[in-house]
């Protein structure tokens, strides 16, 4: 009982921090600096509360539900259920929000006098509140309200830099796509309501046996489309690579790091928690969707030239990887192998946490680069490691983490996902194992391509010589920006080193779900921090970390002092074949990945367009200017969205035919409608 009171009041305090931050920002909107400090400070306090709250709540044993009353109709009750899964997501949101807000204090300064800082603070805090409510709401209709708060607040953040027409267009696409998704979610909830008579998640769970199997399947498809739109699975992702780069960088970090994960949260909540038992093909479909999103996401990321778009595509890739964990978990559950399902879900949650951490580092450091160079186009960066050494270092750590290099955190979650997929290949006896095998192959290729992608990102932003004039004058970012990035970078390393402990906590989180209540824990943390999954494999993060460091230092000292101590190091210019080396001669981001794009031309459909303007159009000997335009065809527009739009337009044209404009016809329509409704509802 005391637990419940502490938790519910704790949660209310936590949310009210952000609400006060939001309202205060509006009240202080006349003073830019004050509004910024007020909203960021309260967001920081709120996030710290959130982290404290999650640690506290993980210690409690039971699920806490509470209702704050209802409005409009008794169906919409403001009720919350805070189980360990919710607590985990509260932790992820708070952790990322903490460092993004810290970063925001300094980052927002360049918006002073340009836009209203009060509005930014208001929507920023509201956005976090929306996410917190989404992961705790336990009533379908209240959930939709929270979902809408989150979506609309983030829409206003996307179009915040509104002088750029591109951002406004991006925001519009985001708004449309997110509401198409919401429409599907509403349909799913209505179907569940029809058969269980309640919007309350607990009642739906209890009544899920009443739902016919085919309705469950329809709900699955609807929820997959609805939540998949938010999560950014391919082909519903089209809003993501335009909307995330448009927002201010600390908001991009939150959107990519956390917001898209709310889609994953709801998939876990509905498929794993509420609608159990489910048919096995659900899990397999999620595996296929995850593989496709992971592979295509990283391929598009590779071809990108804009750093924030690259990061956005890479988020799609990582959502795919998370879905591999969720999908295999669901498939294992349906096949009656809860132990492996547990591993899969732990892997998915771990990757969710890890991706939240390293993707925010990358977005924040990209933001600090863009702040200095005023462009996100990597072609105009270069050589920034000399001007912004710390930002470069944090970006490097983020890149290593996201490329799954040990001992950073990304490696350990991908390791666990690999182990889950291997288990599926070995233990499942029917054709489903081929899907597990294909997923493992997709994940292996994704790993290799992600490495290439972040070599490109780091190499072309920070290394070689500056290619743009702004990049030559860049300076290191301010203290608050570096604090935000540094904190997360340290987090990425610590989550890696202590991955065994993190996994054992996640193991408790997952076993809190009702389907896993009887499943034995699969993880035991031994003194050497080694981690084993079902005896198939063993890895120890601290041992890895220490041996890396020892080897590195040993070799450093041995080469420095062991041989030829008096070595002289001269400085010289790079070998230039006798010409003067200009920045134009070094490799560009486009050139760096052009060969991979060519290898995958069947999927990426690169197009090349030459334009030559001649001095004399008649003789065509001396070109005045040459332009080469390299683009990728947007397959989704061409093959999916434009046909869909044409279809809807054609349908509307048809519908227009009944609009004759003659009043008698309309009266007849009303009459027919009346008669038929009388007949149907008699």
């Amino acid at each position, binding site marked *: 009982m005391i637990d419940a009171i502490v938790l519910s009041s704790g949660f209310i305090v936590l949310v009210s921090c952000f609400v006060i931050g939001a309202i205060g920002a509006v009240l202080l909107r006349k003073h830019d600096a004050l509004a910024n400090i007020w909203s960021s400070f309260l967001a920081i306090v709120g996030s710290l509360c959130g982290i404290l709250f999650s640690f506290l709540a993980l210690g409690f044993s039971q699920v806490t539900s509470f209702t704050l009353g209802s409005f409009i109709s008794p169906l919409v009750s403001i009720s919350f259920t805070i189980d360990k899964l919710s607590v985990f997501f509260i932790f992820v949101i708070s952790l990322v929000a903490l460092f993004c807000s810290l970063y925001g204090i300094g980052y927002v300064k360049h918006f002073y006098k340009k836009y209203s800082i009060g509005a930014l603070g208001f929507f920023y805090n509201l956005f976090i509140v929306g996410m917190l409510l989404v992961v705790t709401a336990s009533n379908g209709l209240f959930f939709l309200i929270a979902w809408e708060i989150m979506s609309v607040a983030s829409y206003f953040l996307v179009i915040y830099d509104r002088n750029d027409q591109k951002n406004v267009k991006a925001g519009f696409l985001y708004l449309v796509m997110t509401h198409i998704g919401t429409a599907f979610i509403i349909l799913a909830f209505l179907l569940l309501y029809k058969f269980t008579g309640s919007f309350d998640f607990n009642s739906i769970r209890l009544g899920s046996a009443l739902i016919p199997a085919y309705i469950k399947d329809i709900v699955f498809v609807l929820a997959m489309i609805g939540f998949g739109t938010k999560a950014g699975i391919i082909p519903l992702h089209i809003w993501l690579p335009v909307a995330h780069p448009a927002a201010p960088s600390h908001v991009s970090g939150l959107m990519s790091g956390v917001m898209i994960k709310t889609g994953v949260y709801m998939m876990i909540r509905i498929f794993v928690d509420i609608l159990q038992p489910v048919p096995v093909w659900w899990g397999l479909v999620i595996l296929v969707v995850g593989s496709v999103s992971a592979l295509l996401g990283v391929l598009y990321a590779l071809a990108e030239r804009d750093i924030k778009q690259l990061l956005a595509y890479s988020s799609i890739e990582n959502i795919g990887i998370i879905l591999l964990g969720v999908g295999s978990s669901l498939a294992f559950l349906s096949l009656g192998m809860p132990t492996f399902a547990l591993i899969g879900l732990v892997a998915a949650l771990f990757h969710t946490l890890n991706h939240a951490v390293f993707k925010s580092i990358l977005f924040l450091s990209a933001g600090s680069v863009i702040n200095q160079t005023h462009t996100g186009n990597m072609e105009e960066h270069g050589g920034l490691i000399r001007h912004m050494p710390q930002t470069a270092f944090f970006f490097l750590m983020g890149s290593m983490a996201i490329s799954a290099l040990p001992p950073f955190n990304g490696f350990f979650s991908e390791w666990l996902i690999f182990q889950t997929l291997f288990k599926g290949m070995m233990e499942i006896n029917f054709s489903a194992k081929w899907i597990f095998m294909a997923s493992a192959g997709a994940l292996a290729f994704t790993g290799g391509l992600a490495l*290439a992608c972040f070599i490109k990102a780091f190499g072309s932003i920070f290394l070689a010589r500056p290619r743009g004039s702004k990049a030559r004058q860049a300076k290191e970012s301010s203290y608050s920006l570096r604090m935000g990035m540094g904190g997360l970078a340290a987090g990425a390393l610590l989550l890696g080193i202590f991955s065994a402990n993190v996994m054992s906590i996640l193991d408790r989180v997952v076993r809190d779900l009702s389907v896993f209540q009887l499943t034995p824990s699969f993880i035991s943390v031994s003194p050497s921090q080694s981690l084993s999954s079902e005896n198939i494999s063993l890895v120890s993060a601290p041992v890895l970390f220490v041996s890396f460091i020892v080897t590195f230092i040993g070799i450093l000292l041995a080469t420095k002092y062991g041989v030829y101590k008096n070595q002289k190091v001269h400085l010289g210019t*790079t070998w230039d074949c006798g010409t003067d080396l200009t920045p134009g001669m070094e490799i560009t981001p486009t050139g760096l990945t052009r060969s991979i794009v060519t290898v995958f031309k069947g999927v990426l459909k690169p197009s090349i367009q030459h334009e030559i303007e001649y001095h004399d159009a008649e003789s065509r000997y001396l070109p005045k200017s040459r332009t080469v335009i390299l683009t990728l065809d947007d397959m989704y527009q061409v093959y999916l969205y434009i046909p869909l739009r044409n279809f809807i337009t054609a349908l509307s044209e048809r519908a227009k035919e009944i609009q004759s404009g003659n009043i008698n016809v309309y009266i007849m329509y009303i009459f027919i409608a009346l008669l038929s409704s009388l007949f149907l509802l008699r």
Partner: protein
Amino acid sequence: MVIFLWIIQVFFISGLSPLGVGFVRKLKAKFQNRQGASIFQPYKDLWKLFHKDEIISTDASWIFTYTPIIIFATTFFVGASVPLFASFFGSTLASDMLVIIYTLAIGTFFLTLAGIDVGSAFGGFGSSREMTISALAEGGLLFVLLSAALRSNSTNLFTIATAEPFMHADTFLPTILAFFGFFIVLLAETARFPFDNPATHLELTMIHEAMILEYSGKKLALMEWASASKLLIFASLGVNLFFPWGMANSTQPSIILLSGIIFVVKILVVYTAVAVLESSIAKFRYFRLPDLLMVAFVLGGIGIALLI
């Protein structure tokens, strides 16, 4: 005795890898009707490089400076944790298949960055090519190793290497197929024919040499040494995971000696194969290399499909 064996296990790869390179070069020289340098020449080269002054580009950052150490450290670490001739080091916590693959990827990551760092046209293109090849090789490498792992139900390299000999009817074919896949990946990852020519500095074709073009002195020595170690690491993985015969399981000197000899003979077979291949075929056109890597991936896939 055990401590002595541990020292051998840790330093074997780094210590003997230059000898392996010398062996391949000698063999290639024989094929070309040349006398060739002594097989100990790579040691002399390293010694010479370690005693030279260095010249570093003004464009270079700390990435360039520390990359040789990082790369050498990764090969040293991996070299110490792969199975060689004795199975009782299996308690080591770093011998997981995925750990090895991704630790080697750290080396690739920094190598390509170092190629970009100095801003020369050669280094950048070398990095671009290396990045493409290693990105595509990773899927293949994982799949071929996985088919070996499935045979013994473990991804720990020592467990795989001590699994029962493979001459069963149902594991023979997948093992052979996976080994061919592995051999293709070996050639790709260690910059050998038909992927790369380790003996050339022709700017149109070089990959690995292009990335290390700006290095000199101690740093170049570390780079060359690391690259030699990588070849020996892959060769040992190949012979021990796919042909797991003759691993010593006790510390009896005679058994250790015997298994050491068996191991060296197996390694020499792989090195000879590399040398023969380099003397008999030409380098492939760059855009045909992805097809070859896909072959490796498919071979691994077939191997897995036959096992599960």
